[in-house]
């Protein structure tokens, strides 16, 4: 089997019209989102005078990053063909565990951070394990986890702290270092920005690397695109799916620690509803709701649209109630656009 000089061996093929760069671009999953992001940007640049200021953009990026950190693994999970409805409240769980463990044990906050990582990953593994064991739809499994986590978040917090929020950990050992890692503000060229933006960029890079260049990435596309086929050629389907859920858990841990160390206290009822925003960001970013198609960068663009819309409305001094309307409209438009683009791209191959 010699793959010697195949490029030279392949004769010029009359069927192969040179793929134009435009067509290649049309084939990218995130194209619809990029078009939408540019549109939203231009819109708010005109609608809100303060939108283009560096400080405003930094605020927008911060809002985008808090969603984006979660949207990246949720997008991977969606490419792998599954949902996680528990992702939003898992962030709160992660923060609560970290905070209450450190406080109750009067330990260094890093101990709480470590315990929180283990607990959060365990919840992710539980989701994946239940899914692959029972083969029930992930919608049901994670809906169950979602409700259980909401109950546990409130129940345990009330039981331990006797209120619905945790006690402050700001005066505890290790707090300044943990805040520096998870919730600090950096200054670059006179512009200050939150460290979550770095976490977000890191996650996008790692997720893109995994998806596009590693075997695991090939398996993620395969289990989402055709699970039976993947199994038949020897792809470890169970491990891939459990790994994806644990990836969501890892990001939930990062988000949760950010939540804790930027506010010192955690409200136990938070996080409900965010799971849908993560999914919306992934879908706007070109992830196919049925799995097998999408990208990490797309989810980032989706999160950016979210950040621009939520803050742009504030800068334009409109009622913030309109935000949800915008989000819904964006979702519909982006999905229609993605659908149309993919049809075109496939029809012209």
């Amino acid at each position, binding site marked *: 089997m010699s*793959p010697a000089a*195949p490029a030279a061996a*392949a004769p010029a093929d009359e069927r192969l019209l040179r793929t134009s760069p435009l067509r290649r671009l049309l084939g990218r999953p995130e194209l619809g989102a990029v078009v939408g992001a540019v549109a939203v940007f231009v819109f708010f640049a005109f609608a809100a005078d303060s939108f283009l200021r560096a400080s405003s953009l930094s605020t927008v990026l911060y809002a985008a990053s808090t969603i984006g950190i979660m949207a990246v693994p949720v997008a991977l999970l969606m490419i792998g063909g599954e949902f996680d409805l528990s992702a939003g409240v898992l962030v709160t769980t992660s923060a609560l565990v970290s905070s209450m463990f450190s406080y109750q044990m009067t330990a260094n906050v890093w101990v709480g951070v470590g315990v929180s990582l283990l607990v959060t990953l365990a919840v992710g593994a539980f989701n994946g394990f239940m899914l692959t064991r029972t083969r029930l739809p992930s919608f049901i499994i994670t809906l169950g986890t979602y409700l259980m986590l909401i109950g546990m978040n409130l129940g345990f917090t009330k039981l331990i702290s006797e209120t619905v929020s945790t006690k402050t950990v700001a005066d505890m050992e290790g707090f300044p270092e943990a805040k520096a890692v998870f919730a600090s503000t950096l200054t670059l060229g006179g512009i200050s920005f939150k460290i979550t933006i770095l976490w977000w960029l890191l996650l996008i890079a790692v997720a893109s690397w995994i998806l596009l*260049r590693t075997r695991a990435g090939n398996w993620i596309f395969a289990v989402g695109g*055709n699970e039976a*086929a*993947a199994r038949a050629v*020897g*792809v470890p389907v169970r491990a891939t799916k459990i790994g994806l859920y644990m990836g969501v858990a890892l990001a939930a841990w990062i988000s949760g620690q950010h939540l804790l160390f930027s506010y010192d206290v955690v409200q136990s009822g938070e996080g409900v509803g965010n799971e849908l925003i993560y999914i919306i960001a992934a879908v706007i970013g070109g992830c196919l709701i049925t799995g097998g198609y999408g990208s990490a960068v797309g989810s980032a663009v989706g999160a950016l649209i979210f950040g621009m819309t939520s803050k742009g409305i504030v800068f334009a001094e409109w009622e913030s109630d309109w935000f949800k309307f915008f989000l819904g409209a964006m979702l519909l438009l982006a999905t229609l656009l993605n659908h149309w683009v993919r049809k075109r791209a496939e029809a012209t*191959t």
Partner: protein
Amino acid sequence: MTTATEPTAGPAPLVELEQVSKYYGNVRALEGVSLQARAGEITCVLGDNGAGKSTLIKIISGLHGHDAGSFRIDGEETRLAGPRAALDRGIATVHQDLAVVPLMPVWRNFFLGSEPTRGRGPLRRMDVEFMRRTAHAELLRMGIDLRDVDQPIGTLSGGERQCVAIARAVYFGARVLILDEPTAALGVKQSGVVLKYVAAARDAGLAVVFITHNPHHAYLVGDRFVLLKRGTMAGLHTRDAITLDELTRQMVGGDELDDLRHQLERPEPDVPRGAAAADEERRRP
């Protein structure tokens, strides 16, 4: 029933089933089926829907264990743990649904589950250049000149996808190739293309097990024919011992076919009865 005795000459069978049975609860899916697959030969398994073809494939490809009888690979009694174990023993199955992921590019599909990597640690990555080059070259070797290995495999025709799946199995060193109804959903021309690759795989020295319900396709390439009917063996023939007509008759169940012909016979038309009768008269000697 003309159950010919299996000739013992020639190369030893790579895969051999002897009196294999499989039951799903109280359902007899397969009983007493024997089959030999030899290198460089095509063994056709023929049967109508529900004859037990799928069960037979599932046993050979490691998806199901057999309940009775003997299953030997290289003459050695075996029980496969799963599809992966079958692959490791050199048994590759091209399923009817092809085991391809339609939205993924051809090159990713070609190597799915066995991706070559380079680098180590966190830098361990798929050797994308090698994968794309090899997928293109291997398909070219099978005579498929692909426009673009980046195109989603779902955009290829049914016949082309079959060929990609066969090329993949050959590349990964399969010694035994099981093809599950590769021509079932294809037109005449596409079927011909696929049969050509089946023959190419045989010429490359593989033992091919070709499952089909089309005796015409089977007879074009087959060396021996195993007939299944309602989960049992209805016949075993070598190519030189049977004609296509006889094979077709046996497969459909000769008597049943006569029955069917009888039932479907048009009633004599009423109006030109006289003319028909006159016709009949004239034809009589």
